[in-house]
């Protein structure tokens, strides 16, 4: 029995459940929910969806999104958190399926309130919701997909056989996995390229005169684009009505806690500011910096210069480990002057942008140090750049040579390279941590360069007492991100005992 929305079928739902409201397992979230719900349901729904989106994010980094592993793991999460994903349901589960779809609907709109506030939050939310949507749309076979799209007013024009024949060569060579017979069999559609950006971006489609020629199965990309545009606009509108919502005392604490939870600690509130001296930077770079920052620091020392991407990534990291604005200015200035920049030019140009990143110029945003996710996924380095994640962006041969030059033994290097091959960049960095600190288990799940630094300092300074203070992961919002670092805070005698126990829960979570 299907949720078909056809009035003839007797859809036996109990209670207040409205028969026509949720005909499909997924939706575009065009209409906000209009019912009343309790505060506890409000909170549970929001937190559950956040957990789901966080899982989507983590899985998306560790697995290819169309792989079976990804699908199975995500499906497990759906079941655990009671979210809908199944297309067809039998009569017995009509009620529960309805409830799941209702939860999906309401929780999405609640999270919009928390995530519409800044550009970063919006971007994150849209990315995860898109991945979520893509997964559920993929579960639909041709018929239900067609129904779903028609239901949502998405029409697309197919090309004539004549045109297809003329363009056969081009279509075969631009659509992945399309041989000549396949091209003949399938429908192709002409869509303005602006509606198929994902395909254009990856050069996975034939373009002519501004139109993209899309095989039927790629319609997903278009649909996703449409989804993104709609959601983006909706979030902008939501942001405008936010003041009213935030003034509601019942909702304010929850909404605030939600939007901070996703980044975990963002290393922008400095308890350790001013506790670092410039002389410590060189030794820090070899002992406590993650590889990306070590590389940037070295490039800076060697070339007396870094391009914009490198200055941002490294500069904000330095802010995160505790450098004051004055120290930062001195640091960059003394290095740049050794190169081609004279003191005057530095003060006029580079100094401005350093002050800007500390929130002392322009719109005075206090920029936060980049997380691993951000470094891996955005702004890839090009010629002349040294930023990015070495595990993601370096040639494996060069990476190997570099690790060798840092006196890491061959066995360890092989392990790192294996992780890189499997695209587990953060795990590779954790392995690098373990090798350079001579520990079996780093004891934490890496997702931020400043976290690497803090953890390294903690180990090097013998357990609890660390040179730079750090706020402990105690608040409830942290429960949703990483388990608290375990082995590092355990006194030495018990280290051996707990290493075995934490091995499962610690680093391997990714």
């Amino acid at each position, binding site marked *: 029995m299907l949720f078909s929305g056809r009035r003839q079928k007797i859809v036996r739902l109990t209670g207040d459940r409205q028969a026509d409201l949720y005909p499909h397992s997924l939706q575009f979230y065009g209409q906000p929910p209009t019912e009343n719900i309790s505060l506890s349901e409000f909170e549970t729904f929001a937190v559950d969806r956040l957990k789901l989106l966080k899982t989507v994010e983590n899985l998306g980094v560790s697995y290819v999104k169309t792989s079976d592993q990804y699908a199975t793991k995500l499906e497990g999460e759906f079941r655990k958190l009671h979210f809908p994903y199944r297309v067809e349901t039998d009569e017995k589960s009509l009620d529960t399926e309805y409830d799941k779809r209702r939860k999906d609907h309401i929780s999405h709109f609640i999270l919009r309130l928390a995530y519409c506030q800044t550009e970063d939050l919006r971007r994150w939310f849209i990315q995860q919701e898109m991945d979520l949507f893509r997964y559920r749309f993929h579960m639909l076979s041709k018929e239900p997909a067609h129904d779903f799209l028609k239901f949502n007013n998405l029409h697309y024009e197919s090309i004539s056989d004549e045109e297809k024949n003329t363009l056969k060569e081009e279509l075969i060579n631009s659509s992945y996995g399309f041989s000549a017979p396949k091209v003949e069999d399938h429908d192709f559609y002409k869509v303005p390229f*602006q509606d198929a*950006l994902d395909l254009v*971006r990856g050069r996975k489609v034939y373009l002519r005169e*501004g139109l993209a020629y899309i095989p039927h199965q790629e319609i997903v990309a278009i649909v996703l684009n449409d989804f993104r545009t709609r959601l983006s606009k909706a979030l902008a509108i939501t942001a405008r009505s936010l003041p009213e919502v935030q003034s509601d005392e019942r909702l304010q604490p929850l909404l605030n806690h939600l939007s901070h939870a996703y980044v975990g600690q963002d290393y922008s509130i400095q308890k350790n500011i001013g506790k670092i001296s410039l002389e410590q930077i060189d030794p820090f770079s070899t002992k406590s910096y993650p590889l990306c920052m070590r590389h940037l620091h070295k490039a800076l020392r060697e070339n007396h210069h870094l391009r914009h991407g490198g200055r941002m990534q490294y500069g904000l990291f330095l802010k995160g480990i505790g450098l004051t604005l004055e120290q930062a200015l001195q640091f960059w200035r003394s290095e740049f002057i050794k190169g081609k920049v004279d003191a005057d030019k530095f003060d006029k140009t580079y100094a401005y942008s350093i002050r800007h990143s500390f929130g002392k110029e322009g719109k005075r945003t206090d920029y936060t140090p980049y997380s691993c996710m951000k470094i891996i996924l955005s702004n890839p380095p090009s*010629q002349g750049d040294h930023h990015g994640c070495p595990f993601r962006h*370096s040639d494996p041969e060069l990476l190997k040579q570099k690790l060798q030059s840092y006196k890491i033994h061959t066995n360890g290097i092989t392990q790192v390279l294996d992780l890189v091959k499997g695209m587990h960049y953060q795990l590779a960095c954790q392995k690098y941590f373990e090798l350079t600190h001579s520990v079996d288990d780093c004891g934490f799940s890496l997702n931020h360069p400043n976290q690497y630094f803090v953890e390294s300092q903690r180990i090097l300074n013998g357990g609890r007492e660390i040179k730079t203070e750090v706020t402990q992961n105690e608040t409830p919002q942290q429960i949703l991100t990483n388990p608290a670092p375990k082995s590092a805070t355990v006194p030495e005698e018990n280290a051996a005992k707990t290493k075995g126990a934490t091995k499962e829960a610690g680093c391997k979570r990714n």
Partner: protein
Amino acid sequence: MSYEYDQASLPDLLPLYYRRLFPFSQYFRWLNYGGVTKNYFQNREFSFTLKDDIYVRYQCFNNQSELEKEMQKMNPYKIDIGAVYSHRPSQHNTVKSGTFQALEKELVFDIDMTDYDDVRNCCSAAEICSKCWTLMTIAIRILDRALKEDFGFKHRLWVYSGRRGVHCWVCDEAARKLTQSARAAVAEYLSAVKGGEEAIKKVQLSDPIHPFIKESLKVLQHYFEDYALVNQDILGSKESIDKVLALLPEEVRDLLQNDFLKVKTAAQRWECLKKRVLQMQGALKKGVYGDWDIMFQYCYPRLDTNVSKGINHLLKSPFSVHPKTGRVSVPIDLKLLDQFDPFAVPTISLICQELDKALEGDEEANDKENEGEPEQKRRVRDYKKTSLAKYVKVFEQFVEKMEQSWKGELLKKSDQQKDF
């Protein structure tokens, strides 16, 4: 008479340039876009770099006359063009936070010669020469074709930056309305060389070869042998050869080291290479194309995607002067692309001197005729007396072509509003 340019003389040359030579008329006709959209010109941001590196943003003007007066008053060393905003840029601080937004801007591209430093033998950093200029020619051919045929953009202006690169301004309405995401996607589509300092092989061609790559390959093949084998001599020295071979799989590399011992010239080495790759076609992994990989890595356009992505990104204006070289940032005539010589582009000192000479001549012959002529008309004839003339002509043709498309728009609009 020496036409040497000296940056110190800019304060004397700029006033003359902005009073007599800068093509304000065509410039305004361009940026006003036929007046089809209300306040389009008025809400456009300009930024000026003045003497002593003073930089001022959020400049805007009500009309051509105001633009001229301000520029003649400030005599900017550099002019940048930004986006069309939701409000007058000068009011960006007074408008309610969050509502001042960049709405539209031309789709732009910036190709900079320094991005090719790892594959240029002749120059590095800010230097360019006739040997490496071919890279710009190749870049323009490949990108312009794609913008025209793949994306359907009709109004593309290519400009020499004045020192070491070229810019492209895509002015179609559809282009100006593109979102940041769309601009990034277009730039990605056009990119093939990826990787920072740490990547050796920066090209990964897909399998099968996409039609866009196929078309680009045709251009590369046309220029490669002269550019790379002769001018850059990439298969000349051992060091250079090793660099090239590093892009090939080990099996091929080893065989070629041997092959090369038996031949003498670079051209022969290239033939050997192509033959080997062809021969080993079956054994090579998918996505390894040997000689094609080399051609792409050494010659394919390298664009800075960050320039193209941002709607509010400010880019050097055409006809702005480059303070370091004195050269005017001039439009490039695509019909004569292969003959374009960046070293023949006039400097501001040259054209000012040409103008002075011409005025002397005029004074003797046509004194009476010049009296009482409006400033603008005089200027129109002025630039024609200098080397700037042919470049302004290219610009004029570009603007005229666009004007033909707006005529239709204005008629449509006035019909809708019933303004007869």
